[in-house]
């Protein structure tokens, strides 16, 4: 049964990782606006999309720095 002990700890570490990811995403502001991104992704300009991605990254970085 000792394998169960291993599994229990593996499970809680995994769940804990997700919890930390969740807390990080909340603090990072990913839940601030749950509507606009759904519209933004529909703008069909291939150039735009790529720019957006990098922009989002820089924005996230800028926020972190703050």
């Amino acid at each position, binding site marked *: 049964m000792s394998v169960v002990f291993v599994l229990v700890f593996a499970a809680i570490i995994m769940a804990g990782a997700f919890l930390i990811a969740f807390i990080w995403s909340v603090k990072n502001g990913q839940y601030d*606006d749950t509507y606009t991104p759904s519209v933004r992704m529909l703008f069909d300009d291939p150039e735009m999309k790529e720019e957006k991605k990098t922009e989002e990254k820089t924005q996230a970085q800028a926020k972190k720095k703050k």
Partner: protein
Amino acid sequence: MSEDLKCIHCGNSCGKSPVIFEGNPFCCSGCSTVYQILHASQLKQYYQIEPMAGIKIDEMQLPASETYAFLDLDQFKSKILNFSEGGISKVSFFIPEIHCASCIWLLENLHSLNKGIIQSFVNFPKKEINITFNENEISLRQLVDLLVSIHYIPEINQHSIDKKSTDQSDKKLFIKIGIAAFSFMNAMIYHFPQYLPGNEFLEADMKKLFGWLSVLLAIPVLTYSASDYFLTAWKSLKKKIISIDLPIALGLITLFTQSLVEIISGAGIGYIDSLTGLVFFMLIGRWYQGKTYQALSFERDYKTYFPLAVTKITDSGSITIPLEDLKSGDQILVRNQEIVPADSILKSGTASIDYSFVTGESMPVTKKAGDFVFAGGRQIGNAIELTIEKEVQQSYLTQLWNQVENPLTAENKLNTIVNRVSQYFTVVIVLIAIGSGLFWYFNKPELALFAFTSVLIIACPCALALTVPFTFGSTMRQYGRKGFYLKNTAVIEHLYKVDTVVFDKTGTITNAQSSDIRFVGKELTAEELLTIKSLAFHSSHPLSKTIYNSIEGVEILEVKDFQEIPSLGISGLVNGIRINMGSRYFVTGEMSKDENLKTEVWIYLKDAVAGHFQLENEYRPGLQDLIRKLQKTHELHLLTGDNDAEKANLIQFFGNDKSLHFNQSPTDKLNYIRKLQQEGRKVLMIGDGLNDAGALNESNVGIVIADNVFNFSPACDAILQSKQFGKLDQFIQFTHRSMNIVKAGFLISFLYNVVGLSFAVQGNLTPIVAAILMPISSVSVVAFASFSVSLSAKQALKE
């Protein structure tokens, strides 16, 4: 009216004389200007994402470019910018006009319009734009001017400086919920083996491990996620008040200690899964209830209405100073579309001041040099010079605001239905707990303590505490869908208790936008009407516009020798015929005889006075119905700052004149509400302008009627879209249904409690009973509340 051309920018009818640019029709030159700007920058996709999404703003209504001159001053710039370093700055603006996908697209492509803009980001629910820009290429002022030029006018006022870090609490709640959910799920896994047959074969070590792991999980839930419940319970206990949080806190503590005892003694694994589950559900309830309309503001005071800076005229030229520095005796300049910031005297020229935000009256008031001008009006037309009489703080409008404090909030909190119920509930539960403890003490002493704690555990009023958030939260969402926006869920209960409704007149029960227009005088021929229309076309005065729109016809005749005499009227030659339009004095040469205050436009045509147009405020559609329905259940009053010219009409609506009060100053309105409240009445005030602000604040529920809910409205409890005015009675009636649902929800949770208590008093409350009963009661109450609200909303709130 065979072909109805729609402006490709804003979708409004182009009327009879569209502006054509590149073969596209526009309703006005303002729209075509924006089109040209976007066209030049390859941003025409704006029109493809959502057709005709543009914002129509008349050129006359655009703020003068000097309006934003203060943004060049460092003292304002540093306050408005969120961040600035090495020439790169970040700023966020609230733009009420953001309304569709096209808006998002355009505003996020601002960099195509100006290289200096590095990136822009829209938060649609908040109607906010975050811009990062290079100050070496574009200044803050130029940035704002750019937004104005494409008709997205940002709101820059005290509010935009003050509000930062508002949504921190929201994030905290999310994290609390996350932690509770994490602990709940994991604790369930550890507890589950115990509930299955054959658990006696489980190794003792494993039981112990599961037990201690769940205790570890419970600690952050108790100390962090549920901390608010302990805090509020403690606070209310100190004030000797029993609130709903008290039995919750009691239940949580008992759950934890009981579990701890069982785990340490090795008797079992405890109730940690129930404990974490409870906290999780209650936090979900809190989140559901606390969701608010992000872009709406219910707390605005005069500071958010007035500008940040004014232009002061000194001997050495004009300078921009902050509003606070304005002293009486100062000379200031107020441009087109700017707001008069303080009570003052008009120094020169004629002013045409729109007080619609203050009184609800949409027709501008004309002032001559030497006239006293109250603060709060918006100048329309040329720039005017004013001498400040009173400082901003001492101005009439501001004074009114300062008179009101909110004495009701503290008292009302105690009186909510959930707290009244929980007072009895707590007492009864504690008595039952002691009773069953005593009973077992004499019969089977080893069960006494267990029975006592079991009662406290199972009685933890989670379901009870969830009923109100979910019922009222759903109700608020249903209202929101129908155009009735509440500040918070507590308003529903206040609205339910209301027994007296007080209306404001102008702008509230009358329609500020459209007026009833009729012509008094000789019969006009079609040709004469066309002549009048053609002349009115050339003037931007609101009265000319109203007349222009009221006359049908396609073509516009050529007007020669057009003259506009400020505050008097307009004149011109059409087909060689002289035509004058304007005030009675201007057209006939005689002063108005009676001061009946009805707006009149006189016409002089073909060497004779033809008669006059009479404009009357139109009552909102559905008013008659609404009053008839409300009268059955509520006492109705009407307060208006106007004279009693409309008395006869109003009596038709209200049936009698006892409760109609005319010539009421804003302070009178406030005092009237106070008087009603002193008589023990619960008052609902419905108003629209700043002059109702005092009364709105003082009343138990203050509702503001607004054409555009995102525009400025005085502080209030709820905002009602003007289109939905006729449904007010439905909204009020619906609070009764909500209340009934709350009561039914209470009944359900009591039934669960009876079942749970029957286990508890017998000393049979095993963890499995708790683990089944507590989540089921919570979930079923939540489901019942949300489901029955949306079901009854379908019946009661019809389109």
